[in-house]
C-alpha cells in the first residue's frame, strides 16, 4: 500500500494524489507536500540541481522513516517519491503524501517525514549555475534542528 520510489524521471503530483486516494473510504485527510527547485535570485542564478544518492541505502532509509511515522500516528497510505539526477529550475524534487482518518496525523506525519528525510536520507545536492559553475549544497543547521525536534 505504501509507495516509496527513488527515480530519475519526473513524477506527477496529481497522479500520486489519485493513487493515494483511490478507494480509500476511511480517509478523511490527505496532506501532500512537494519540494521544488527554486531560483535563488542571484545574478548568476541556479538553473538546475544535480542529485546524487547511495542507491543501496536510500530506499531502505526512506522505508524505515515511513515505518517510524506509522508507529507514531494512525495513517492510511503513504507515498514518497524522490528524484535523483538532473532536476531543473521549477521542477519537483520530492513528494511526500500522507492520508489518514484525521488531519492532525496527516499534517504531523508529512512534516515528520520531510524533516527526517532532509537529515538522514543519503542524497546530496549540487547546484548548477547559468555560467556552468557547480557547487555542492552544504547541510544546514536549521534542517538538523528541524529533524531533532521530533525526538524525545
Amino acid at each position, binding site marked *: 500500500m505504501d509507495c516509496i520510489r527513488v527515480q530519475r524521471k519526473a513524477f506527477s503530483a496529481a497522479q500520486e494524489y489519485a493513487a493515494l486516494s483511490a478507494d480509500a473510504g476511511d480517509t478523511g485527510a490527505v496532506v501532500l507536500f512537494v519540494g521544488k527547485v527554486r531560483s535563488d535570485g542571484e545574478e548568476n542564478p541556479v538553473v538546475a540541481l544535480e542529485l546524487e544518492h547511495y542507491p543501496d541505502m536510500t530506499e*531502505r532509509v526512506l522505508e524505515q522513516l515511513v515505518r517510524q511515522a506509522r508507529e507514531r500516528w494512525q495513517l492510511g497510505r503513504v507515498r514518497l517519491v524522490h528524484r535523483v539526477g538532473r532536476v531543473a529550475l521549477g521542477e519537483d524534487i520530492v513528494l511526500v503524501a500522507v492520508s489518514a482518518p484525521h488531519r492532525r496525523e496527516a499534517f504531523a506525519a508529512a512534516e515528520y517525514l520531510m524533516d527526517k528525510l532532509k537529515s538522514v536520507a543519503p*542524497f546530496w*545536492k549540487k547546484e548548477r549555475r547559468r555560467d556552468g559553475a557547480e557547487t555542492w549544497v552544504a547541510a544546514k543547521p536549521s534542517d538538523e534542528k528541524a529533524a531533532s525536534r521530533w525526538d524525545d
Partner: protein
Amino acid sequence: MAGAVITSALVFKRAGRELMLKVRFFASLREGVGCDCIELRPEQAATVAEAIAALAERGPRWRELLLATNVLAAVNHEMVKPDHPLADGDELALFPPVTGG
C-alpha cells in the same frame, strides 16, 4: 634465542586480524579523493574511526578531507558512529552531511 623469536611471531599472528573492506565515497568527498570505491585491507582497523585514520595516511589530500571535514559513515547501509566495530567483508560508506529533500 631462536625459540624466543618464534614465540613472538606466533603471538603477533594471533593478535592480528585479516580485514577486507569495501569503502565507498559519495558527493564532495568522492570528488575530493578522486574515486568512488576502493578495497581497503587495513593492518589495524577494528573500528570505523581506525579505518578512516588508515585512509588518511594515503596522503595530505586524504588527511585533509577525512579528518578536517565532517564525515559521516554507514556500514552495510546503516548509519554508524566512529566507534562502530568492523567485520571482514563490510561495506563502509563515507560521505558529507546529507542534503536531500
